[in-house]
Each structure stands twice: as structure tokens, then as C-alpha cells.
């Protein structure tokens, strides 16, 4: 499913059945047909093309946002686990603080401060992801630090920095990857939510969330317009969750051994 999404996004970079941007009032509310596979919206734009271009948008936002969270969060988490003491205390209390706000609320807050727009919504979602990764990394890294082979490698004369990258990171990598795929799904959802609220991707760029928002007003006139982007979001999130589960089974030797 995720593969299908990626293909959609990739194809839409070069080709869409119609144009996602061209407005043609004469062709509004067309049902599915050969030229407009899923029909057109209230401005006569081709829905399938908009969905495909929207995939691009969703994936781009999610990739960048998750990357921000991943890089910053994992580093902070590793640092906290390696240094302990005050460093750990400060990093963890800061992430507790940011956890006190619900995800969407903090994203809205950030976009409210920085102004709506695609880049700012990426930033907002990315910032929200940092403490998630930081906590996960610190927790799992601490568990690895307590293992005997870490003590053994300290006895072999390795410093904290070396141990972190040679022993801790490889042992927690699979957990972080799984978390990243799950957060990827959440990021897509969050982007759709922000766009739906008008805080994310701005027109004329198509986005699943904004398509939903626009279709909402026309719910009784043309319900399919709302159903298509809704389906797209649901498919993407479901697919990514399945991918996360699958990856965990493959990457976690303990789980796969049980079978």
C-alpha cells in the first residue's frame, strides 16, 4: 500500500491524467469518466490528479517532518542516555513539557506563531516529533547502557561517545525505524489536519486535508469529492502502520524467533 502511494507520488511528478491546477468552470462536478477518472470538483479540477499531486505533498511534508524529529530527537536521546545527570534531566523535562500539549494543538500553536504555510506546518510537525524520538531513544538506550557488553566495552577502554555510536545506536536502530514509520503516518494525518484547518499547505497547491475541507461544504451536492481524499488519507495511514508492524517483525529478532 505504501509502495502504491510512493508510485503515485513518483508518477505525479511527471504525469497526471489531467492537471491538478487548471480551473475549468464549465467542467465542474463531472462524474467519473475516461478523461476525469474520479470526476472534477467545484472548480472543474481533476480530482485524481489533485489526489496524486497531494500524495507528493503529504509524503514530502512527512519525510521532512519525521527527519527533523528523528535527527534532533535521536541525538538528544542518545546524549541524555550517555551523559545522565543534569543533561538527561533537562532534556527529559523539556520533552515532558512539550508532551503536555496535545500534538495537534501544539502544531496549531506553532503555525499560529509562525504563520500558516507548507514549510511552517512541516516545522510544527517536526518539532512535535522531536520529544517522541528523544524519549524513545533515551529509554531504549538506557536499557542498552545497562547491558553487560557495554560494561565490557567500557572495560576495554572505550569512551562514552564511541560506545554510543558503536554499541548503543546499532542495538536500538530497529526500534527507531519502526517508530519512524508510525510517526510518518501520524505526520501525514497531522499535515492533513493542519491543511484542513487552513494552516498547512496553501492554495493552489493540492493537499488531501484542504480537499476534504473544500468538499465538506459540498457534502450533499457531491459526496464523492470528500470520500476520495478521505480514502487516500486512510489508505496511507493504514499502509504505513502495516509497514511499521511488518518492519518490527523483520527487525526484531525476538519477535520473529517466536514464530
Amino acid at each position, binding site marked *: 500500500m505504501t509502495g502504491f502511494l510512493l508510485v503515485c507520488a513518483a508518477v505525479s511528478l511527471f504525469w497526471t491524467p489531467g492537471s491538478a491546477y487548471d480551473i475549468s468552470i464549465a467542467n465542474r462536478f463531472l462524474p467519473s469518466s475516461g478523461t476525469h477518472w474520479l470526476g472534477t470538483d467545484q472548480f472543474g479540477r481533476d480530482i485524481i490528479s489533485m489526489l496524486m499531486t497531494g500524495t507528493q505533498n503529504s509524503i514530502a511534508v512527512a519525510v521532512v517532518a519525521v527527519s527533523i524529529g528523528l535527527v534532533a530527537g535521536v541525538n538528544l536521546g542518545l546524549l541524555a542516555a550517555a551523559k545522565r545527570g543534569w543533561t538527561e534531566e533537562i532534556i527529559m523535562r523539556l520533552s515532558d513539557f512539550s508532551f503536555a500539549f496535545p500534538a495537534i494543538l501544539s502544531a496549531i500553536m506553532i503555525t499560529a506563531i509562525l504563520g500558516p504555510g507548507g514549510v511552517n506546518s512541516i516545522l510544527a510537525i517536526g518539532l512535535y516529533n522531536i520529544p517522541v524520538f528523544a524519549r524513545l531513544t533515551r529509554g531504549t538506550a538506557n536499557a542498552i547502557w545497562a*547491558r553487560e557488553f557495554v560494561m*565490557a*566495552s567500557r*572495560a*576495554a*577502554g*572505550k*569512551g562514552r561517545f564511541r560506545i554510543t555510536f558503536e*554499541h548503543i545506536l546499532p*542495538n536500538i536502530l530497529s526500534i527507531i525505524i519502526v517508530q519512524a514509520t508510525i510517526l510518518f503516518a501520524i505526520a501525514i494525518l497531522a499535515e492533513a489536519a493542519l491543511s484542513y484547518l487552513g494552516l498547512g499547505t496553501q492554495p493552489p497547491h493540492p493537499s488531501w486535508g484542504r480537499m476534504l475541507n473544500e468538499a465538506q461544504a459540498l457534502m450533499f451536492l457531491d459526496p464523492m469529492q470528500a470520500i476520495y481524499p478521505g480514502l487516500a488519507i486512510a489508505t496511507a495511514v493504514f499502509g504505513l502502520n502495516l509497514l511499521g508492524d511488518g518492519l518490527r517483525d523483520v527487525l526484531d529478532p525476538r519477535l520473529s524467533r517466536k514464530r
Partner: protein
Amino acid sequence: MTLLNVTDLSVTLSTADGAARAVRDLNFSLEKGQTLGIVGESGCGKSMTALALMGLLPEKSKTDGTIKFNNEDLLQKSEAEMCNLRGNRMAMIFQEPMTSLNPVHTVGRQVMEPLRLHKNMSKADAVAEAIKLLDRVGIPNASERLGNYPHQLSGGQRQRVMIALALSCAPDILIADEPTTALDVTIQDQILELIQSLVREEGMSLILISHDLGVISENTERIMVMYGGAAVETGPTETFFDALTHPYSQGLFAAMPKLGMGRTSRLMTIPGVVPDLINLPTGCTFTDRCPLATAECAKTTPPLRQLTAGHQVACHHLEEAREKRPEELFA
């Protein structure tokens, strides 16, 4: 030449319930090439002593005294300086070979790490050296084993790898903390013999830590018995068991199963449990379990007193304890 000289070593761990005095005023020294055995039951401070020597104690601990290693005080050294010593001049083998190797890296990589870290060897040199090392510790097909992951090796083989790892930079001292406790008896002997022969070949000093008097007596030149974080009896292994005096040491000796013991005869035990390190009793810590204890024992801590050449005992009732046999003491 004195390689290691420990004076008044104390380790205090801060726990949620208060300060635990894991090691108290420990004194011992070790000549180059000498082997020392530290024996005692769980929680007597033997592992903490080893970790203190390596500078690997948990962060929430305080270490007092001096540890002179090659005439340099280890307790004054920075973490970076200690990193240079660890694995290079001093090495340690741990109790659990099953978990002492990182599961995500190959055996070869882990054996090569100290070589590359401390000796700045090139990869090719390190590979050659690692094969030689694995060969020396008795791992067959060493060159093939380099590519194996720890889970593909048996417990005994893993401990051999740990030994190879510890010996890779030819350290001055090897600290083996219960190296065979997790292995079965036949492997135990092989591993101990291996450590023995390697230590002798390299002229290394060895500190062997165990709760097993038998293991200690067969593999060391000096024995130190620890109880409640302090040394209660120490002496040369050769005459140690003839001169066995401290009621606790005698109890340990008596608690060992002996060959030819009838099926009906019960194993001797020392009544009671080890003292709580947080609320250590005043006086001799063995008082409440000791058959010879008097009012004086509960009041003042007995100092280590010279019994014969090199044999020291910390007990108020030296003469009385000396006359009694273990069987009589714990009848």
C-alpha cells in the same frame, strides 16, 4: 616490583535507602606476575572492588583511598586517561559470557576493537592479530569464526572470546570477576586452565574473584577473604588452609561439599545472612553469625593482625578460633 597497591580503599554507594558501604578500608598489593584470589559470598564487596580498580563504578558512588597502579594513582586520573588504561594496561573478564558481547557485531569486529583503539593497528593487521588471539584461546577455525555473531557461539566459546578480547593488548593486570560461574563444570576447568596458562606466559598479574574457595585455591598464589565489604583474612594460598583462622573463612571452608561425603550427611552452612551494607553493625560485621562472638565483638572492629608470615586475620578471638576446626565451630 609492586604493580598494584591499594590503600584504605572505600566505596560508598548512594542508594534510595541511604549510603551503602560496599567496600571498607581495603588494603592489598599485588606484585608483577602474582595472582590474587578474592573470595566471599554475594554482596561482600568483591565485584565492587574490581569495578573500583577499573574505575567503572556506577556514577552514584564515592571512592576513597588510593589505588596505585604502576605508581600512578588511578583515582586521580581523568576519564579519558582511564579509557587509555582500560583494555590496554588493565583488562577485565565478566561473569556472563552470554551477554558480555554485543549481539549486533561480529566476534571478529569486537576482538579487533581494542587493537585498533589502543594499538592503532590497520584493519589487515588487526584481522591477523585477532585470528592469532582466537587461536591462542583455543577457538577452532579462528579465521572462520571472525565472521560469526555471538549467538552462533556456545557459552564457553564466548568466554574464550572475552578472554581473547581482554588479552588483546597484553595488559599488566587481568581482573576476572567470576569468569566461570555461568559455565558448566567441565568448561569451568578448561577456562580456568586457559586463564592460568595465558597469565603465566604473558607474566601478567591476575585478580581472580569467585565465591568458590576451590576455584580460588587452585588458581592463585594469595587469597583474600572478604566479608561485609572488608578483608577478614588474607594469606598465601599454600599455607592458607592450614592456617585457616577467621570463623567466617572456616565457615566457607566447611560449607564446601567434600569428596566421599556420605549421602546422608548434610552440607554445613553458616547460619544467618550477610549484613545490610546500609546499616552496618558496629564492631565486627560477622558478630551475629559467629559462634565465638562476645560482647567485645559487637563493640569494636578487630584490626587485621599478623598470624604467621603474610597471613593476617581480623578477629578478636584469634587463639580460640585457631584451635577449633571448622566442623566444631559450626556443629
